[in-house]
C-alpha cells in the first residue's frame, strides 16, 4: 500500500498538506482546508484509511493540525473520525491528536463537539511555534 501525500496550497487556495504513511500508520493533515470540491478531496483520504484498516490493520495515529477549516471540511473530518471510531471498536489501535492554537479557537470547540458526538477521545495538544 502506498503512502498518501498531498502538498497544500495555502497561498493560492486553501488545500491542506496531507501525509499518510502506510508503513508507520502516522497520518497528518495540516494547514487550512476550504476547497471547491471538498468531498472529492476528502474521499481520497477516506478511501486510503479504509484500505489501511482492511489491509494493514496496524495502529493509526491521526494528527489533525488544522488552523482553519470551513463547515464542509468539518463534516468530512467528522466522517473520518467516525471511521476511526469504528476501527477502534473492532479492536484497532487508534490515537487521535488534535492540535490547536488556543482554547478560544473555533477549532478547539469543534474538537470538543466531535469527541462528544462520535464518542471517541482526542489528545488535545497546544501548538507551539512552528508546529
Amino acid at each position, binding site marked *: 500500500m502506498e503512502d498518501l501525500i498531498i502538498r497544500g496550497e495555502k497561498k*493560492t*487556495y*486553501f488545500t491542506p498538506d496531507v501525509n499518510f504513511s502506510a508503513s508507520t500508520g502516522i497520518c497528518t493533515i495540516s494547514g487550512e482546508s*476550504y*476547497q*471547491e470540491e*471538498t*468531498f472529492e478531496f476528502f474521499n481520497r483520504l477516506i478511501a486510503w484509511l479504509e484500505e489501511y484498516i482492511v489491509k494493514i490493520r496496524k495502529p493509526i495515529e491521526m494528527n489533525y493540525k488544522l488552523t*482553519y477549516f*470551513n*463547515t*464542509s471540511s*468539518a*463534516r468530512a473530518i*467528522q*466522517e473520518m473520525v*467516525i471511521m476511526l471510531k469504528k476501527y477502534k471498536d473492532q479492536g484497532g489501535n487508534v490515537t487521535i491528536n488534535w492540535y490547536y492554537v488556543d482554547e478560544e479557537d*473555533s477549532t478547539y*470547540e469543534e474538537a470538543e*463537539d466531535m469527541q*462528544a*458526538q462520535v464518542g471517541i477521545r482526542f489528545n488535545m495538544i497546544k501548538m507551539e511555534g512552528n508546529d
Partner: protein
Amino acid sequence: MQNLFENLSDNVLFLYKGIFSYPVIVEISHHIRNDLMLDEKLREKLFAIFVELAQNVNSYSQQRTKVSIINKEVGIGVFYITEHKNYVKITTLNQVDNEQLQRLQDRVHKINLLDRKGLRNLKMSFRDEAIQDHANSGNVGLVEVALKTANPILLDTIHFQNAQYALITAQINKKTD
C-alpha cells in the same frame, strides 16, 4: 437595489457584486485576511464568516451564470463589509424564491433563539443528518456564522425589478468581554 447602494456610506470597507465562484471567493478571502485595516482576530473572523455566507450565495442564488473557464454554473450576488464604532458588519445579498426565503426565515429564527450551547448542539445534529444522508453539505453555515459572531443574524428582504433578494447580515463586535 439602487437605494441600497445609495444608503451605503463612507464606512464601506469592501463591496463586491458579481459571480461567487470558488476562485473569486478565495481571492476576496485573501484580501479580507490580509488587506483590511482591522485587528487580526477580527479579520480572521470576517474571513471565516465570509466563506460561509459566500458559499450560500454560490449554492443558492437564483441569479446564476455559467463561467466558461471553470465550466460551472455559479451564483451571482452582492457582498459588503461596513465598519462602525463598536462593530463590523458583513452582508451578502442574493436573489431568492419564496420557498427559499421561507426556509431561510425559519432557519434564522431558530438560530437566533438559541444560546451558544444550543447552537453547538444544532450544528452537530445537522451534521449527523448530512453524514447519514450522504449529503454533500451539512447546511450549517449560518449556525457557524452565529457561533462566530455571538450575535443574532439579521435577515432582510428587498424587492427590485420584480425580483426578491435576501440580505443576510452578521455583526461582529470589535471588543469581546
